[in-house]
């Protein structure tokens, strides 16, 4: 099977703190792959590394047969034409209305006529169910609507790869259901490859073809949603079942409370 993204022995540190210590991930073409893990494990950082916004300390990331971090800016920007990214906050331009937000990449990278841009924007917005919200400003949209507009903008140039950064966080059940459905439908209808970074277990597992779970800078589990759910390792069980204590401790490292109280009173 062809792989659209290949991550090999990736190391990345921030302020001397290792975030990834030699992880290997492959993303097959046409699949929805979920990258899951507790908060602070570097899931968003991984997306930024794939998009070339950050540089790894070691290892390589191949996207569409190109080593992302060996490209100059022009080549990187050309590669990004094949990628769309949905940011956690939506990342919509607050000074532009919904129409102009979706039209932005088309105006920047194509020579299409105004009527063609108008038609494409309408089609993309129709796919996410927001054709009626065309003249609204980002401030007038709910969180779920903003993400759907950002989704329409991300697919405006018909990319091959789409990166979703925590698409379900902070959403009500209806918005969450809509987003889950949209991610799956768009992936199939447009022949995309999707990478979802999330810690919403049920929603993500319901649409993923393959799952990687990362924690402590390493891949602690991988497989289809079914095999992941059946995995017996403590780390995976704690994450998937939301157990408060386990390999990821409930308490932040500190001396024993009795010792600390005695020391303070003394």
């Amino acid at each position: 099977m062809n792989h659209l993204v290949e991550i090999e022995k990736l190391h990345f540190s921030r302020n001397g703190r290792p975030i990834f210590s030699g992880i290997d991930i492959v993303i097959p073409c046409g699949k929805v792959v979920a990258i899951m893990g507790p908060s602070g494990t570097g899931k968003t950082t991984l997306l930024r590394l794939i998009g070339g916004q950050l540089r790894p300390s070691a290892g390589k990331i191949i996207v569409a047969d190109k080593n992302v971090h060996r490209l100059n800016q022009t080549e990187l920007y050309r590669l990004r034409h094949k990628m769309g990214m949905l940011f956690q906050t939506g990342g919509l331009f607050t000074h532009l209305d919904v129409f102009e937000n979706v039209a932005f990449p088309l105006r920047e990278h194509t020579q299409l006529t105004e009527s063609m841009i108008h038609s494409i924007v309408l089609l993309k917005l129709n796919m996410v169910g927001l054709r009626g919200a065309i003249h609204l400003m980002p401030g007038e949209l709910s969180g779920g609507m903003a993400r759907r507009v950002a989704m329409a903008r991300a697919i405006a140039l018909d990319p091959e790869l789409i990166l979703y950064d925590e698409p379900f966080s902070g959403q009500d059940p209806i918005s969450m259901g809509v987003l889950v459905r949209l991610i799956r439908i768009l992936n199939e209808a447009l022949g995309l490859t999707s990478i979802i970074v999330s810690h919403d277990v049920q929603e993500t597992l319901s649409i993923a073809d393959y799952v990687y779970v990362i924690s402590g800078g390493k891949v602690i589990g991988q497989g289809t949603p079914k095999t992941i759910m059946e995995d017996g390792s403590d780390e995976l069980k704690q994450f998937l079942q939301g157990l408060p204590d386990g390999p990821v401790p409930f308490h932040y490292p500190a001396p024993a409370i009795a010792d600390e109280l005695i020391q303070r009173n003394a």
Partner: protein
Amino acid sequence: MMFERTASIGRLGLVIVRDWGKSGQLLFRILFRLPKPFRGFPALLQQIFAEGVLSLSIIVVSGLFIGMVLALQGHHTLAKFGASMELGPLVALSVLRELGPVVTAILFAGRAGSALTAEIGLMKATAQLSSMEMMAVDPIQRIISPRLWGGFVSLPLLTLIFNVTAIYGAWLVGVQWLGFDPGTFWSNMQSSVEFRLDVVNGIIKSVVFGFVVTLIAVHQGYFSESTSSGIANATTRTVVYSSLAVLGLDFVLTAMMIGGW
């Protein structure tokens, strides 16, 4: 204790050098990635409107009052020496050489510079700059560059408007209120002011101030920490650093100009 102090001085030095380096890199990228003509020109006009036209009210009102106060103070002092007829030259030279460029630049830093920093900082915090980058659009070229050039064009124009309104304010007080002869007021002013030495030098100062103040504003916004306190601190730094830079550079430029440069 001594070692700690030396270390903290060293750390401060490193922070300053790093900031200068980042600012230099940003400037280099702005200068070598000019906005594209089709998209850049409308963006530049938009920025001249946002930074220049929207600053007009504060500049006009301040210019008017500063000119009026200058005329009152000038009259009060010059009258002691029987030199009231020199009110026109006093006001014109003070405004054209110093007050116009300096006060306009400081007001510009407070009005437009702080707004620029907050806008860019918020765009960064809400992932608008990152999403632009991921859409293969360079935020330096699309967002930062038009803002820098907008400030560079706006400040000299605002300085000219400030100069005109300040002199008008002085005329209102001197001629209309205190009853000076308008002919003496204007002819003394005309004979004392030299276009090259006074008007052009003042505009040269405002061109330098425009570039420096806007560069500080975009630098602070672009490198601000993406938190509410980070953006607030960056906005404060813009106003403080810009005001200090304007006053310091004014001294340097004045010394160069008086020295016959």
